[in-house]
């Protein structure tokens, strides 16, 4: 190792936050789930809300999220995280209940819960990992799968004729009066990670100020499902996913951002 002499507490620039446990995450190498967990945990630490944060874990690859966040957590039935979060946050209005959900969980089996929680303007934070595929179960097509994308259940590529259009659920949710902040981020570069973290911070600040639902989509990679190395998957994501799912704020302070 180079420059061992500068390894001193006063020179520390970055270390893993203690709001994440020391357990080794089960995610595949390079998967954006880990990075997204980290920025949420860092925001919780920076806001000093560790004893008030409540994580609602989904069904999907992040089903074990509660092993990694050093906060109170509950596991919801598939897709029902926003409904569970509704109850938890209403009963604990000074707490910070957040859901963490994949696209299969949030935009397929849980569409009704997602839409109604957002439409009621529940004071919750929803973190939505969109990797365009069902990662956990072996890479089946999701509502967010791109046209032409090959998955286990669309081996010749998704077609409109057979499978309909990729669902831009985030734009849809922004139309609902209950959503106060809706944004789409990514975590594939250090600049993107910093922006995504700011968005997560904004979401939790809105919740503190009881503004209604804050929704942060993270367009992410699924190296295993896409059958690519992590760096290659990130490139593919930029070239393909970002076209259908452009990065940026969609609704800020309850107003749609005009593009």
């Amino acid at each position, binding site marked *: 190792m180079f420059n061992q002499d*500068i390894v001193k507490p006063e020179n520390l*620039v*970055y270390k*893993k936050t203690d709001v994440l446990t020391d357990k080794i995450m089960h*995610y595949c190498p390079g998967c954006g*789930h880990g*990075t997204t967990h*980290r920025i949420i945990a860092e925001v919780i630490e920076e806001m000093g809300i560790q004893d008030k944060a409540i994580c609602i874990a989904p069904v999907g690859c992040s089903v074990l999220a509660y092993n990694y966040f050093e906060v109170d957590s509950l596991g919801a039935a598939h897709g029902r995280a926003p409904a569970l979060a509704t109850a938890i946050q209403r009963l604990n209005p000074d707490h910070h209940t957040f859901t963490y959900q994949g696209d299969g969980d949030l935009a397929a089996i849980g569409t009704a819960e997602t839409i109604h929680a957002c439409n009621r303007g529940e004071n919750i934070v929803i973190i939505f990992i969109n990797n365009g595929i069902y990662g956990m179960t072996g890479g089946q097509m999701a509502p967010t799968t791109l046209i032409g994308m090959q998955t286990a259940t669309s081996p010749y590529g998704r077609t409109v004729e057979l499978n309909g259009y990729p669902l831009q659920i985030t734009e849809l949710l922004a139309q609902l009066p209950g959503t106060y902040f809706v944004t789409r981020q990514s975590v594939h570069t250090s600049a993107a*990670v910093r922006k995504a973290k700011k968005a997560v911070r904004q979401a939790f600040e809105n919740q503190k100020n009881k503004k209604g639902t804050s929704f942060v989509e993270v367009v992410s990679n699924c190296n295993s499902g896409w059958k690519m190395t992590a760096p290659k998957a*990130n490139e593919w994501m930029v070239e393909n996913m970002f076209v259908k799912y452009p990065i940026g704020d969609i609704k800020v302070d309850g107003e749609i951002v005009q593009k």
Partner: protein
Amino acid sequence: MAVKGTVVIDKERCKGCGVCVVACPKSVLALAKNVNGKGYNYSEAIIDECIGCASCAMVCPDGVITVYKEKK
């Protein structure tokens, strides 16, 4: 004023995904020829050019990298 930085990589936690290698603006990092206990080619610093920018640590999904920086 030249900036001197260094990274401490917990190689047993590293999964050898390589996203830190791509993220480093100074091409400091590379995946080792050797593997760790889990069989992953872990990330390591190969040149003394680190500026302590923490770009690598920002993108590491597994929180493996600790970064230090000192002004010379």
